[in-house]
């Protein structure tokens, strides 16, 4: 974590740091998430702890993730970023030996309740993974996959929603003439946008992005970032990234995780210009990580 964080470092070091940061940081929302009215909270996490067997990976995490904003989760490798967001759609259920305590409320409803249908939850909380993982099917079938799962949809409606999904993911123009070709023939960046299209086609309310651009080239990364900016008007987005410039560019709020603990969660502007915790400052300035 040296080259990437160099600009951020200069942000802090320069006397005109705040002005520069305002240019660099996508959002100027300076409210702290804890000040948000309850209506604006999409995901409310309280005292969340997670154990792999006897090893604790997340420790007493409480945070309020705001609706229709981009929240970035940053932190050094192995700090539990991915584990945290995988709690939000209960993907950790799939791993043997994981136990979770604490509460996670999605729009006021506890997701661990017994009467919660996990499949239904995952339809509401879409997820995009680090490496593009399109199914070995056609472009069309990839986007239609989630829609077909929800039940039988007439062909015309399916067509419309696939088109809408691909347009929302800014991929339609590139693939509209090869919808029936294998999705594996697309470039890495296209595949990742296809996966995003696939996720938003089922119209979730939350979109979890787990390092969505880390396997992509700079131009594809840029496209994904632009897409995120577009999508946040409709979805609550939580993005895990180890690239702090990216966090600064795309997010409104930033959470800093260190060794399974939530060190600081505040507006991105504050985290990158005037963090309250010294650990945060050390991390965003590249002193360790």
């Amino acid at each position, binding site marked *: 974590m040296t080259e990437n964080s160099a600009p951020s470092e200069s942000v802090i070091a320069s006397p005109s740091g705040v002005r520069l940061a305002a240019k660099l940081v996508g959002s100027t929302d300076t409210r702290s998430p804890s000040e948000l009215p309850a209506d604006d909270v999409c995901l409310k996490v309280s005292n969340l702890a997670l154990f792999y067997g006897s090893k604790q990976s997340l420790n007493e995490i409480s945070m309020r993730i705001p609706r229709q904003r981009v929240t970035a989760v940053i932190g050094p490798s192995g700090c539990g970023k991915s584990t945290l967001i995988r709690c939000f*759609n209960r*993907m950790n259920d*799939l791993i043997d030996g994981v136990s979770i305590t604490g509460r996670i409320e999605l729009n006021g409803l506890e997701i661990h309740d017994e009467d919660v249908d996990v*499949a*239904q939850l*995952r*339809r509401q909380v*879409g*997820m995009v*993974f680090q*490496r593009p*993982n*399109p*199914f*070995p099917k056609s472009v069309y079938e990839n986007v239609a*996959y*989630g829609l077909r*799962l*929800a039940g039988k949809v007439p062909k015309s409606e399916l067509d419309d929603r696939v088109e809408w999904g691909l347009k929302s993911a800014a991929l339609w123009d590139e693939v509209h003439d090869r919808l029936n070709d*294998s999705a*594996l023939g697309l470039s890495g960046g296209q595949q990742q946008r296809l*996966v995003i299209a*696939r*996720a938003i086609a*089922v119209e979730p309310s939350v979109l979890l992005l787990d390092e969505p651009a880390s396997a992509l080239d700079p131009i594809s990364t840029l496209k994904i970032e632009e897409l995120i900016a577009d999508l946040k008007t409709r979805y609550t987005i939580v993005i895990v990234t180890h690239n702090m410039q990216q966090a600064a560019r795309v997010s409104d709020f930033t959470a800093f995780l260190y060794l399974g603990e939530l060190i600081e969660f505040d507006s991105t502007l504050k985290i990158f210009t005037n963090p309250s915790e010294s650990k945060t400052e050390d991390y965003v300035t590249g002193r360790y990580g």
Partner: protein
Amino acid sequence: METSERLPQEHRKLFRERMNLGVWFKSGEPWVWLTATAVGTSIIAVLGLIGIIAVKGLAHFWPADVITFEYESELGEQQISGEVVQRERVPRAQFEESGAGRAIDISGDPTRLMIKSGNRRVNPPDFRWIYTHDITKQEKQQDLITFERLEWGNAYGTIVELRQDGNAVSTVNPWRELKKRIGRVVDLRRQAKSIQNRSIDRINYKLEKLRLKQRKRELQGNFNTSDLDWQREQLNQEYALREHELNDINVELDRDTVVIAIAGGRESVIPLKNIVRAWQPNAMNVFSKFGHYCASIWAFLSEGSREANTEGGVFPALFGTVLMVLLMSVLVTPFGVVAAVYLREYARQGVFVRLIRIAVNNLAGVPSIVYGVFGLGFFVYLVGGTIDSVFFQAAKPAPTFGTPGLIWASLTLALLTVPVVIVSTEEGLTRIPKSLREGSLALGATKAETLFKVVLPMASPSMLTGVILAIARAAGEVAPLMLVGVVKLAPTLPVDGNFPFLHLDRKFMHLGFHIYDVGYQSPNVDAARPLVFATALLLVIIIIVLNLTAITLRNRLEARYREAMN
């Protein structure tokens, strides 16, 4: 000048380096040689195997020249016509010790020929050895004819006269006339066979059904059989009609005979109805020989066997083998796949599952005859016997399913091959990237939906690999089959025109067992030997074709999923 003086020295140095064994070993070159030799030996062994089988098997169908020999023997001057099937040198010591040969005035080892002289009925034996030094004269008679007969093997001779109803037929060209009349006989035989198969067999089948129906009623205490009697009467009438037709054809078949002169100045009368084919091998050119060759191979593939399997074709065995393997694949694939899915996807991975997995792997190593014994005890007697007593009470005491048959053979082989399908399917399932499963689950798919829509399609190449291995093992298996359904001679194919068309309870013939039977149980070893090679070649080809089909299918599926696997 200077260089030429230095050269020998340089050479010596180079030579020393080359000869340094330590360096040579370190370079890894011996290892390359060793591995390459192993590969080369394997290739030579496999090619040699297939080559020998192919040459020996395929040569059988070539219309060999028939040579007329005159030779000296203890019995004096002899004459014989036949095909040379083998030529070998006899060590002189052995020759002299045996005392069988006469004193010879040549130096070195004598050579003897095996002659297939045919005419088994009038001039046995049909295979005999003669020493080349005994031969005084040999010639190829242009008008010599080879007759392939339904009984008694081949006959060789020249036409003396054609007879119709016992009277000589006068004709300018007896050979052409003979061929015309053989054509007529072939047509008549075909008609007779069609009446036999289409009508008589069907009527017999219906009569048997009626008998079972009546027996069933009797068992239920209902002795009113008037409707059945009426039906039976109808069938019997039809039967009499068909039998009459058949008799007419048989009379027609008996009309012609041919008298031939065989070597040694004797004559033989052959009824034409007994002739399969006749040809003049010495008068044929390469092209007509090739045509005959192809026709012979086709006959081998498409006809049933004759003369205790030493003559004729292998169609019933070919059919039985392919049908049994297909049935086995249909049974083993779903069973193995489902078992593998449970073991890999649903079962909690622990000691118990590990034990099961070890057991499954070991199951693949159990000798196949053990499966045969199990199949006989469990499938045939227990399952089949139970089915009989529940559903086929009327047929008792004759067993229907409680006796070896196609379904039990297929099930036994399915059991034999299920471990390979389980193992390779499991391997396929573990290779599916976690990211794809997660991608599906994250879209709100349940585990079962993920399994059916993403995981199983992607694992299909591995399943097919399992099926390929299963086929390769099953098609070559003979030992267990002898206990659970394969017979030397099956009267009917397991598929015919009578409902339900596929008769799973029937016994069937199998190429593997056919090879064993022809090779070791045959009353006429010399006549059967080429058939052993031809049948073995056919079995190898079938296995290769079945495998290639499955491999092509798998490769196409694999190509579709390859990129997603990385």
